[in-house]
């Protein structure tokens, strides 16, 4: 289950996600990540990790079809330091 935008707020407000569901903490399309999984979240049966959602629907000027705004090196740092596998786009 991808936790981004309002979904992350709802999750932090107490949304109950079953243990075996993988949590995906997504970047903001520019390589910034709001938070990493906690140790408890990493121990979930389904696991958790950091990844990019790729092209999110955005305003015309932010469309990434012709260019990629996600700074991949930043994303790589998040993934490597967090020790998790990046989820599929």
């Amino acid at each position: 289950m991808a936790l981004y935008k309002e979904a992350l707020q709802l999750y932090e407000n107490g949304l109950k996600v079953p243990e075996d569901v993988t949590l995906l903490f997504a970047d903001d399309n520019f390589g910034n990540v709001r938070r990493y999984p906690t140790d408890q979240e990493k121990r979930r049966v389904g696991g958790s990790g950091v990844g990019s959602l790729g092209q999110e629907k955005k305003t015309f000027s932010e469309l990434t079809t012709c260019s990629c705004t996600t700074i991949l090196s930043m994303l790589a740092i998040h993934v490597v330091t967090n020790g998790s596998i990046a989820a599929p786009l």
Partner: protein
Amino acid sequence: MWSGFPWPGSSFFTDDPLNQALADTYGIVMSTSHHEPMQQAMVEWRVAGKGPWSWELNKDAVAAHWRAGLQRAKPYESVITIGMRGEGDKAMQAEDPQGTLQDVINSQREMIGSTYGKDDGVPRQWKTQLSL
């Protein structure tokens, strides 16, 4: 799934009835994008024209859509995405987003349970292999 699949208005699942089977033969595990739960592409919903993409306003049609996605994917190894946002991955329009999303997740688990036998969808055979 990318909405611009070969034919406009089709998805990986509907473009060719053999797609899922062929992917499975090659050991490819299919899934859908983060805003397209239950092995259904958003384009399929738009093409079907079954009303608003809303759990509050159109629960029966959305639930039937999801059950169909699960049933279609049943023979093949899949990663099922769950949750729900607004159409086209916009924010959900709901009186109580948290309550609605919780209800969505609970209902989706129930659907997975009734389609696959367990609400985490993992078949018993696979569990046996893991324990060896």
